[in-house]
């Protein structure tokens, strides 16, 4: 209870009755029982509201809708639209096409009038009691069965339908005294401030009223309805300072509002009755200037004289396991309102002192206010006995967990699964490994016909616990029946053509696979199911790239299309092979990764195998036709690779080292495979194959090449070792020499700097010049060590092979391990920050040596000195922070871009237009080219001509 009210009660009321009230207030707070299961309440609520919404929909049609909500969300800001709607109202909308049952033409937002409240109500609520001794709803109580049914078996007294059929009906209570609607206080304040306290006319001189109206109409013509609202606001603001009524010359007093619902006129309180009478006296013409349409909104309607009671279906009670009933928050709140209202009536009729009546009135105002909004800043929220605040009307609608964002905008779906993902290169690219556990939960509906009866019976026979079984059968009338171990015989007897069996997921079923964030269309692709043991979803590592997935704990979602149409769409539009070529740069976005690249590199570079080894390899990747292998004992790796490529395929390309790669008549005659040919988003090999042989062939070939690479490594062994970074003695000497030379050079420059002999670069100070020169020298030295490493390191070491093939890592990484980590830079400069005039306390102040600026001359293998390690940690932390801060920012940027452009479309005349047909670009991309049909944005005319002739 509000503190101030309590103290007021104490101060004023010495009478016994007042003390009673106070007790009552305390007792009330204790009265409220907390619903045991929050979730259930919320769910029931959601259902009921949906039903109530349905009712609203049903009234739509020939006429505009009058919203039945008492208006938690309504504001006077909508009146402009009501004017338009009014015009539409007279027109009868005739359906243009026969399949359109009802069409919404316009929606009117309005405030309920007392008459409307009474008319739409089917019961008057007079008692706060809910149930009688038999547990039957009391007539005239809050759970009156005229307000709808929430118990199974009962019938609604108003409409006669059963539970779930009856959507509920409103009731009303007659308030003993008017109560202000908390959501309209600002509008009421505006009205009070800008109308006369004597004659209730608007504070604009008679002759100017029509002028103001003209101005408003003009503004609306120019800037639309928003401009009109803006102008109305300005006009109202200008009226607040007028202190003499231009009509009756009465002096105006200053009106203030004591939040949330009390109004004062020169320190004297205005009662809601007074407010109501003032608002009631305002003429229709003046109301128009406030932007309200009188037919829909009268200002006095913003002060309640009757309060609508929402149907029970939107505040269902739940029965606990103990048989006890637990009421909804709204019912509790309404109970308070009804109780206090009754008491107010009694007191007024008994002629109780004004103080008591006023206190009760304030209490009623509090309850009605919290009924609408329990988060009003100035009021203490009404609470359960447990101290948890009640969830009333406004809380149901707004914020993330509210009806709008949670129930209406938040879409949830059935028939889906989510777990951790892991790689399996033995899957095809368009397959997804589904754990058997999931496969037995997810189902595919299959309609029984004469022809598949026997086939489907087998699933029902197995029941839900044995794979492959079935979980449900659906009768032709739509009734669903769960199959259990006990009922499976009965179900087996029952089924006949026309029934539907929901069988377990099986190999070859279609599934839509997705990883968030779903930034482009390749984030959701259709895969074929492979049921596997284990608990993770499995995918071929080659499709990680379009999903941007890795296996450090990523989770992905799986959806099972449930209808023939959905399956057809998924297969034709979304399957992995249809997404091979990126529509962004016109190259394959799916390619070999990691081991597959190293393997093919090794195979095609210089590997010679025995014939039986070669056959073994081919067999392992699923080839059983060996006729393409040359008939000799020793088979070259290139020849083995060539067996995969079709015989009429010709190709020339470049390796990463700019060497020629030539495929002639399906034979790899020159060069070797590496990332620039097999990798994702690079090289034209895959693009050309796709162009010539189509998606099915490409996806198949890619899978084979991938597995070939993996198998090669499997047979030869492939690993990294510290010894990969070993260098011969002379190389180490060379590196030391390079580094010490650089150190000397830097030393020299520092000396020159101190002697002022250093010449400065244009546009830089002397110290800046020195910094730049030091940085340059040190970077040069590091690069030199890198070259030395590249020259002397064992070319056949596996680390080196990975770097050269492009599978993972680069030469710089190797050099950092073997020789020298190099300069640590923050914001493109040497490290400066830390202590006063130095980076760490073991250096001298203003020291300029390489070491003091964060140069790490050791390699990772040799090990870093403590200071070096610290510098490394500094830059490491910095880059970590940077990525952590940048990712959400760029994500939001991308999201806004995508939302802004989502319904732009290329029309048949190659213009880009938005949804209302306005031109955005006269020719798509200014050259009208579809990048996904090109090769890296280029159309190779020469090659096309060559291929034709």
């Amino acid at each position, binding site marked *: 209870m509000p503190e101030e009210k309590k103290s007021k009660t104490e101060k004023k009321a010495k009478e016994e009755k007042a003390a009673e009230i106070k007790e009552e207030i305390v007792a009330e707070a204790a009265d409220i029982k907390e619903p045991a299961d929050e979730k259930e309440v919320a769910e029931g609520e959601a259902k009921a509201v949906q039903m109530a919404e349905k009712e609203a929909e049903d009234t739509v049609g020939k006429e505009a809708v009058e919203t039945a909500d008492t208006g938690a969300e309504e504001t006077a800001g909508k009146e402009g639209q009501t004017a338009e709607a009014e015009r539409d109202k007279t027109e009868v909308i005739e359906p243009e096409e026969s399949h359109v049952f009802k069409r919404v033409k316009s929606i009117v937002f309005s405030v309920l009038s007392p008459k409307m409240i009474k008319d739409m109500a089917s019961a008057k609520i007079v008692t706060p009691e809910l149930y009688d001794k038999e547990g039957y709803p009391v007539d005239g109580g809050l759970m009156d069965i005229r307000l709808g049914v929430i118990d199974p078996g009962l019938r609604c007294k108003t409409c006669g339908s059963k539970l779930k059929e009856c959507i509920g009906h409103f009731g009303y209570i007659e308030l003993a005294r008017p109560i202000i609607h908390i959501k309209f206080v600002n509008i009421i304040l505006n009205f009070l401030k800008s109308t006369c306290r004597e004659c209730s006319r608007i504070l604009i001189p008679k002759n100017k009223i029509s002028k103001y109206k003209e101005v408003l109409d003009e503004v609306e013509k120019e800037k639309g309805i928003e401009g009109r609202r803006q102008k109305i606001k300005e006009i109202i603001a200008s009226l607040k300072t007028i202190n003499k009524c231009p009509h009756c010359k009465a002096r105006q007093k200053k009106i203030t509002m004591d939040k949330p619902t009390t109004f004062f006129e020169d320190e004297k309180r205005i009662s809601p009755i007074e407010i109501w009478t003032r608002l009631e006296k305002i003429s229709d013409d003046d109301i128009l200037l406030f932007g309200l349409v009188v037919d829909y909104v009268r200002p006095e309607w913003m002060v309640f004289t009757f309060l609508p009671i929402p149907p029970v279906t939107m505040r269902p009670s739940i029965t606990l396991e103990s048989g006890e009933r637990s009421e909804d928050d709204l019912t509790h709140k309404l109970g308070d309102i009804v109780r206090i209202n009754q008491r107010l009536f009694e007191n007024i009729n008994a002629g109780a002192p004004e103080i008591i009546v006023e206190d009760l009135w304030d209490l009623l105002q509090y309850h009605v206010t919290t009924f609408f909004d329990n988060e009003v800043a100035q009021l203490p929220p009404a609470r359960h006995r447990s101290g948890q605040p009640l969830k009333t009307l406004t809380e149901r609608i707004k914020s993330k967990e509210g009806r709008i964002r949670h129930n209406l905008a938040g879409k949830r779906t059935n028939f889906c699964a989510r777990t951790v993902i892991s790689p399996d290169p033995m899957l095809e690219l368009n397959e997804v490994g589904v754990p058997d556990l999931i496969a037995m939960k997810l189902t595919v509906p299959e309609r029984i016909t004469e022809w598949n009866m026997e086939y489907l019976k087998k699933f029902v026979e197995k029941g839900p616990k044995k794979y492959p079984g079935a979980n449900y059968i659906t009768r032709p009338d739509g009734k669903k029946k769960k199959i259990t171990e006990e009922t499976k015989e009965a179900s087996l007897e029952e089924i006949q053509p026309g029934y539907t069996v929901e069988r377990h997921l099986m190999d070859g079923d279609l599934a839509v696979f997705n990883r968030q964030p779903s930034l482009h269309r390749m984030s959701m692709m259709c895969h074929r199911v492979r049921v596997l043991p284990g608990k993770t979803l499995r995918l071929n590592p080659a499709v990680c790239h379009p999903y941007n997935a890795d296996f450090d704990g990523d989770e992905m979602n799986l959806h099972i299309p449930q209808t023939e149409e959905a399956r057809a769409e998924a297969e034709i539009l979304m399957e992995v092979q249809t997404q091979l070529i990126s529509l962004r740069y016109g190259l394959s976005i799916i390619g070999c990764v990691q081991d597959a690249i190293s393997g093919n590199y090794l195979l095609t570079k210089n590997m010679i195998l025995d014939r039986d080894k070669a056959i073994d390899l081919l067999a392992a990747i699923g080839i059983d036709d060996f006729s393409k292998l040359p008939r000799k004992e020793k088979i070259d790796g290139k020849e083995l690779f060539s067996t995969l490529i079709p015989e009429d395929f010709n190709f020339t390309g470049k390796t990463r080292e700019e060497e020629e790669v030539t495929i002639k008549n399906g034979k790899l005659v020159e060069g070797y495979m590496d990332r620039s040919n097999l990798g994702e988003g690079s090289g034209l090999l895959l693009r050309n194959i796709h162009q010539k042989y189509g998606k099915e062939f490409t996806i198949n070939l890619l899978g084979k090449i991938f597995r070939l690479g993996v198998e090669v490594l499997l047979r030869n062994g492939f690993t990294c070792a510290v010894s990969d970074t070993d260098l011969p003695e002379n190389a180490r000497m060379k590196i030391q020499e390079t580094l010490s030379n650089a150190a000397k050079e830097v030393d020299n420059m520092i000396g020159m700097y101190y002697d002022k002999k250093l010449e400065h670069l244009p546009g830089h100070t002397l110290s800046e010049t020195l910094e730049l020169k030091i940085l340059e020298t040190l970077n040069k030295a590091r690069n030199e060590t890198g070259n030395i490493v590249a020259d002397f390191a064992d070319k056949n070491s596996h680390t080196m092979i990975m770097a050269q093939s492009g599978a993972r890592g680069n030469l710089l990484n190797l050099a950092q391990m073997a020789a020298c980590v190099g300069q640590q830079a923050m914001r493109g400069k040497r490290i400066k920050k830390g202590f006063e005039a130095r980076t760490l306390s073991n250096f001298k102040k203003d020291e300029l040596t390489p070491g003091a600026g964060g140069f790490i001359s050791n390699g990772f293998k040799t090990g870093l000195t403590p200071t070096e390690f610290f510098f490394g940690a500094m830059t490491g932390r910095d880059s970590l922070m940077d990525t952590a801060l940048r990712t959400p920012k760029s994500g939001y940027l991308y999201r806004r871009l995508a939302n802004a452009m989502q319904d732009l479309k290329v029309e048949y*005349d190659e*213009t880009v*237009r938005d949804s209302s*047909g*306005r*031109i*955005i670009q*006269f*020719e798509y*991309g*200014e*050259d009208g*080219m579809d990048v996904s049909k090109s090769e890296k*944005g280029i159309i190779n005319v020469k090659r096309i001509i060559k291929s034709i002739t």
Partner: protein
Amino acid sequence: MKKKFTVDKHILIPKHTKLGDKHKEKLLEKYNISITGLPRILKTDPGIKSLGAKPGDIIKITRKSQTSSEAVFYRVVVDV
């Protein structure tokens, strides 16, 4: 006095020309669009200052393009 600077002669300003009535009609017919469906340009835009364009005129803009050598764009002059 120094030579006065004119924006539309600047190297970075693409070529703006006013479309004649005949061309205007042809254009609207070609794209099957009313004048409100075109992209807009402000009457006070410095690039068309010297053309003396009135609201409702169509300005042809010829730009250099990264994807094709030249790209044409049309804008309708609007007030405010």
